[in-house]
């Protein structure tokens, strides 16, 4: 035991986890979850709390809720693609031609002004002057069905990107664990942290409200001039864009808070290279959030001006430049791709080290790779616009894009190096970590043909791109997120979930994901363009396989959800250190006390020194140290 806690023997410390009331004799404060006062005062105390752990749990709840909404939208998109949409005209026996729409599941129609018809006579209704009476009706057509599809797809994309993936690991797990892993009592600015949670809620309400009143069909990228012209005169698009702008504020404030926390609040003895790699990843992420998000802020603000006042900066009719919007948009949104993946890499590093019980291979290389990815992320935005920019620019951006592969591959090889000859526990978090390795490798490698100009000419804007970014954003980031939830669930809520059902859920997610998205690589190489609600008949079988995959995926996530919720009610009490981790969060009770630590911890060993120290609250019999090399000099 190297973290010094001068208050009594460690066994009594460990015993708190088994105590019925969750708190022991000489520490009279309960865990952060212990309710104080009645129901309403408890709810109020959560809504106004500045405790980073409660805020982490609140983010987790909000992110999972929105993940559910975005997931249902994804299922709807996949279901719509079950069959191609066709308007079939048939001549009826009485000679009239009847047109039916086939293959469409969702069609809310478009409000259209039509002549009012008397249902009894089938003739137009006339008013006193003999004019035909007009009425507003929702008219269904092939096109209105496509519009419904566009709106559901935009809902899915905007929710998943802005409200789920970006805040998922940093805001939920990062808020909860970054301060504890550093040995701090809280983040540097607790009230700012609360503000950024409320800003997040406020921005999400804006975006979701724009969907409730009819939906936005711009896609999550809001490309001009479409986004400045569609749905003219209505406030929906402005509300959605304003929502994204407000969410950006939340992202900036969280990132700023984390950077200052890492710089100023590390426990005594914790140098930069004693920090867990999860903290390094969140730190690199926070730098990107702080540096890139303001650019999307001004871009979205100008888009709002464009819609409200027609300022013309992005409007070619006025002499403006729509490609400028794309440059601005991707100057933020490409770095933000790494806001999405870097925290996932951080979680993967923790999962692999702890559940393989082995010192991470190449700690410094992984830490610097995080910063390297953050740096490179700012100079590759042009690869989203190979077909919209000059040839020279495209060639330069293509070359720069290949740089990303270097730090990324460094990380993958280091994780594999860690697993080599390790004592691997096959449990739920490790299953997710292995899924992450497989899916991330596929996602990363399929990025190379997209970065190569000649192959990209064929593959761009196709399902190949869709499959590629789902492998990275969902297959890697969200899989790491769910893996991280399983890894830290006992610490957050003090309960153990059923490991068997956890593994079953993970395997179903892994299979479902690959069935859904690997198929889309084939669709893309065969020429299926992205964003369309319909397709030629030859693609039907691939789309149906992909849709079945989405059901398996959904089943896997539902099992996982029920398993986790079940553990809250009926799970075993979690010990302080169920996995044998060496980072500071495993030194405190499960769930942690309000102030995290009873005494300021002193860090005397590295976060992954599994070959040197016995984990907190565990005995040498449970985690034997490897034998010291005899004779010396032979290793």
């Amino acid at each position, binding site marked *: 035991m190297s973290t010094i806690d001068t208050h009594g023997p460690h066994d009594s410390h460990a015993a708190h986890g088994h105590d019925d009331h969750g708190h022991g004799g000489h520490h009279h404060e309960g865990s952060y979850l212990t309710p104080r006062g009645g129901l309403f005062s408890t709810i109020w105390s959560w809504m106004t709390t500045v405790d980073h752990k409660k805020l982490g749990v609140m983010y987790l709840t909000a992110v999972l809720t929105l993940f559910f909404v975005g997931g249902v939208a994804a299922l709807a998109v996949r279901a719509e693609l079950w069959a191609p949409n066709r308007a079939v005209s048939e001549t009826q026996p009485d000679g009239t031609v009847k047109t039916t729409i086939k293959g469409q599941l969702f069609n809310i129609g478009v409000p259209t002004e039509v002549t009012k018809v008397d249902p009894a006579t089938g003739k137009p209704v006339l008013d006193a002057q003999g004019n035909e009476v007009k009425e507003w009706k929702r008219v269904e057509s092939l096109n209105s069905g496509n519009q419904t599809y566009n709106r559901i797809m935009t809902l899915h994309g905007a929710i998943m990107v802005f409200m789920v993936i970006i805040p998922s690991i940093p805001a939920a797990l990062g808020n909860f664990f970054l301060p504890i892993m550093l040995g701090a009592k*809280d983040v540097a600015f607790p009230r700012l942290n609360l503000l950024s949670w409320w800003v997040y809620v406020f921005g999400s309400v804006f975006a979701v409200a724009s969907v409730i009143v009819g939906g936005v069909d711009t896609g999550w990228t809001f490309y001009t001039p479409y986004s400045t012209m569609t749905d003219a005169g209505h406030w929906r698009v402005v509300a959605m864009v304003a929502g994204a702008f407000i969410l950006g504020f939340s992202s900036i404030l969280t990132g700023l808070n984390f950077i200052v926390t890492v710089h100023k609040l590390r426990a005594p003895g914790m140098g930069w290279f004693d920090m867990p790699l999860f903290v390094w990843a969140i730190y690199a992420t926070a730098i990107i959030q702080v540096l890139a*998000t303001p*650019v999307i802020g001004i871009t979205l603000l100008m888009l709002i001006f464009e819609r409200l006042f*027609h300022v013309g900066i992005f409007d070619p009719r006025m*002499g403006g430049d729509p490609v400028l919007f794309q440059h601005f948009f991707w100057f933020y949104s490409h770095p933000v791709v790494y806001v999405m993946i870097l925290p996932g890499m951080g979680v993967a590093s923790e999962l692999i080290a702890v559940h393989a019980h082995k010192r991470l291979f190449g700690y410094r290389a992984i830490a610097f790779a995080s910063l390297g990815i953050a740096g490179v992320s700012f100079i590759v935005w042009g690869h989203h616009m190979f077909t919209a920019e000059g040839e020279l620019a495209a060639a330069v951006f293509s070359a720069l894009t290949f740089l990303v592969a270097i730090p990324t591959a460094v990380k993958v090889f280091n994780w594999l190096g860690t697993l080599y000859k390790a004592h691997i526990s096959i449990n739920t978090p490790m299953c997710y970590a292995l899924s992450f390795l497989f899916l991330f490798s596929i996602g990363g490698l399929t990025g190379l043909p997209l970065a190569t100009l000649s192959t990209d000419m064929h593959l761009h804007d196709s399902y190949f791109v869709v499959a590629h970014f789902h492998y990275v954003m969902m297959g890697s980031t969200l899989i790491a997120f769910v893996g991280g939830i399983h890894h830290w669930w006992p610490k957050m809520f003090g309960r153990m979930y059923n490991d068997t059902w956890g593994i079953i859920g993970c395997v179903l997610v892994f299979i479902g994901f690959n069935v859904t998205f690997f198929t889309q690589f084939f669709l893309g190489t065969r020429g299926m363009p992205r964003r369309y609600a319909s397709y030629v008949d030859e693609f039907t079988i691939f789309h149906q396989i992909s849709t079945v995959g989405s059901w398996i995926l959904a089943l896997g996530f539902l099992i996982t959800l029920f398993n986790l919720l079940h553990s809250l009610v009926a799970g075993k009490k979690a010990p302080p250190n169920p996995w044998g981790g060496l980072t500071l969060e495993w030194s405190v009770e499960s769930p942690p006390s309000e102030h995290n630590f009873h005494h300021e911890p002193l860090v005397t060993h590295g976060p992954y020194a599994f070959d040197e120290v016995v984990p907190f609250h565990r005995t040498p019999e449970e985690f034997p140290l490897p034998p010291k090399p005899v004779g010396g000099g032979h290793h």
Partner: protein
Amino acid sequence: MSAIDSHGSPPTAAGGKGPLWSRMKHAHHFRNHDEEFDACKLGMWLFLTTEVLLFSGLFVAYAIMRMKYPQAFTNGSHYLDWRWGGLNTIVLLLSSFTMAYSIRNAQMNKQGWLKFNLAFTVLCGALFLVIKFTLEYAPKWAQGKRPGFLFSYPNAQDPYEPIWWSIYYSATGIHATHVLIGMGLITYLFLRSLKGTYGPKHYTGVEVVGLYWHLVDLIWIFLFPLLYLIH
């Protein structure tokens, strides 16, 4: 409210004698006053970085549009009167001086000067906005020199002048919003200074708001030549 929430709230005064600033406690999760001061300063510098990047988007839009339509931008800067812009520059520079001076006043425990300088800074901000709105925006708007589709100035010499006005109003409008926010923050400092909150041991708030105010000034220092002086 649980224990941690009450501890995490802003620095509160402990009981006892002496002026308020000497009794202010640091937040519970910092080890001491200095650590809190450094953290707040670092946080504000990071925030200022985001502000610079926010305006950099506007500067890039300015550069690209200027490159595409040099004539419209040359005409545009001729429509602006550099004397009003110059006066506003002087007003903001003066306010930056009084802001910096108020930090010094807090450090030296000169409570009277601290209140005076904070109030003076707010008034300079107000003067800036008055000049901007009444002497610059209002007459131009009335002449039809407006952004985008609202543009209706009959004597325009170049078809792309609406773009110039779009950039002008966006950039100066967002800057004016920042001046307004800064005035709000300094007013808050002023009200707290009436109670004697700031002094040699506790002046973090004055320091970080001062940093923000200097940045607002600095943005104007860049906007002024770009919009008014370059022909």
